[in-house]
């Protein structure tokens, strides 16, 4: 990698919250800007230099034909491709419409549906091109982002969590909200990284960091049933900002690492 690696930040269907997390590195932002060469980051700068870059950060999910073409082009121009956030790594909250008739969905929101062009599904970047590093979270965690940038600059792999939110509760000496308070919690299925934010404020984790590696939903779902959650409540809880139901999305099979 060059002395100052070149960097691009791309947006697909998303809310900009993960790009904002880059700008929220308030105390580190200027130091980072000195160490990397930002070629493409329209959210932050009107200097735009097309062409190959060492590292691309990609926010957002793929929801249009044009975006399918665009992600392949970005992949071919990028050394490392790092997806940031729940949309890019999992399809995002907008994947809630997957499996629903898109025509009906469009009609709900738009009076003149023929102006709107969209795919039937919202899919993660890895369903379309190989991804080198994934940062989960809605939004991503600033600490993980800084660790990833620091790792890139020193030429080592980033140290990212692999465990569930449960481990973060234990590390924070946080009493389990489900064991002690019978509050349904998705912590056992959810990738660590937030620092157990929801249990700390006394609510159950709602899974916004997406699934941990190899989650096992079945025992947790029976526990939810014992806690009195209806089928509808369980389904909505598991499929919210992220999908923790363990159903592979229709095109995930085409991912190639």
């Amino acid at each position: 990698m060059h002395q100052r690696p070149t960097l691009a930040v791309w947006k697909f269907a998303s809310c900009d919250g993960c790009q904002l997390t880059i700008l929220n590195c308030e105390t580190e932002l200027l130091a980072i800007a000195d160490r990397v060469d930002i070629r493409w980051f329209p959210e932050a700068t009107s200097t735009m230099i097309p062409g190959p870059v060492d590292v691309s950060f990609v926010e957002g999910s793929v929801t249009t034909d044009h975006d399918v073409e665009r992600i392949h082009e970005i992949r071919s121009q990028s050394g490392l491709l790092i997806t940031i956030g729940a949309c890019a790594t999992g399809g995002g909250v907008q994947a809630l419409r997957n499996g629903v008739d898109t025509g009906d969905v469009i009609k709900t929101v738009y009076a003149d549906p023929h102006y709107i062009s969209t795919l039937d599904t919202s899919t993660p970047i890895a369903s379309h091109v190989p991804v080198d590093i994934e940062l989960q979270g809605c939004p991503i965690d600033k600490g993980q982002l800084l660790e990833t940038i620091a790792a890139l600059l020193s030429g080592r792999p980033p140290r990212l969590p692999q465990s569930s939110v449960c481990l973060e509760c234990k590390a924070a000496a946080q009493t389990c909200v489900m064991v002690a308070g019978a509050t349904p919690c998705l912590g056992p299925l959810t990738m660590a990284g937030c620092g157990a934010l929801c249990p700390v404020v006394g609510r159950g984790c709602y899974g916004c960091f997406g699934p941990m590696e190899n989650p096992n939903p079945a025992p947790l779902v029976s526990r939810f049933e014992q806690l009195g959650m209806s089928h509808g409540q369980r389904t909505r809880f598991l499929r919210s900002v992220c999908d923790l139901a363990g159903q592979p999305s229709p095109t995930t099979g085409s991912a190639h690492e």
Partner: protein
Amino acid sequence: MTIEVPILARVEGEGALHLTVNRGVVERADLRIYEPPRFFEAFLRGRGFEEPIDLTARICGICPVAYQMSATHALERACGAEIPESIRQLRRLLYCGEWIESHTLHIGFLHAPDFLGYPSGIAIAKDHPDLIRSILSLKQTGNEIMTVLGGRSVNPVNVRVGGFYRLPDADQLERLATTLDAVRPQAIDLVEWAATFDFPDYEREYVFVSLRHSHDYPFSEGRIVSSAGLDIDVRDYETVIDEFQVSHSTAKHARLHGAGDGELFVGPLARYALNHDRLPIPIRELAAKVGLPQVVRNPFKSILVRGIETVYAIDEAIRILGSYTAPERPAVEVSARPSTGWAATEAPRGTLYHRYRIDDDGLIAEANIIPPTAQNQPAIEADLRTVATENLGLARDDLVALCEQTIRNYDPCISCATHFLKVDIHESDGRRPLSDFAID
């Protein structure tokens, strides 16, 4: 004949600008938003009645608090909940955090570069590191308020129907107060610095629309009023405003019924014009000191009004912290009932309206969201037509920069409605554009 400028930076969302020029007049300025639609209003149907708070926060990473506040107020109205004053004050404090964060981001990183001729806030920092550090510390203060009250600044986790999941600790609030006192002078310096900019000489007679509250500068409560005499309960907003589609945009537009073309203007200039008397005297004095009249009609000066609102939000946060008494409980109990509720709150970039209908099973049967940028799009396009027509003699790069700056005046939240802007300029009569334009 086409001129393309690939991308507008320093706004939020994806779009393009298409200008049609006929005999030296810009006939059309279409802000083409092609940000892919995400269909929130569709997938909210059938969700639990409390879920819009966390789901709609994801519409905009820059103003999640606005979405959470509009949602929770609408749902509480539907369910008939009464919210204690102490919780109301904490919600105002949370909203202060978002205004400080969003306004300082826009002032320092999105808008100031236009006035100073830099590509970015980071580039400004190369020449003026202390200035940008100061802006970053203000922005950080806004984020700290949201973190203390909301658990995190982007997509807070601590807001619920009825109040909060957990109340902040006293020592956290004390630290916030100390930080706010420390950064307040920097916010005033920021306003005075922005007042030294060279502002384009441009004014228009806008129809300003915002909330107006009986005694406070508005965040989440009040009636909807306009500079044209509108004064209605929020529940009647959909009877005076139409959302409509245009073929060039995935974001809906909105217009007011009645006289003229229905164009309206929401955001800092509107709030300031309609609520100047609700600002504390020191804030009004600061505005006067930097040359702002009670009504500002030059949208390029919105950067100054954002600065004024930043100082206001800091002072309001200090006031709330100084008189804070903890609520008995973090939230009041709220049960779903079949009903409809509506609310409007003041997102940093303007009025954000939500309406929800809850069914017999406590699920969302219908949702309607009117974001600020939808309401501002006709005004943005009208500004672009006027500004571009008056400046067709400029060199192409300068004209495009001025058009982009005109759009940024509105701090458009284009994920709520764009990200990159491609500028096409067409001649409707088939003639070649003015020779100053570079042609590809």
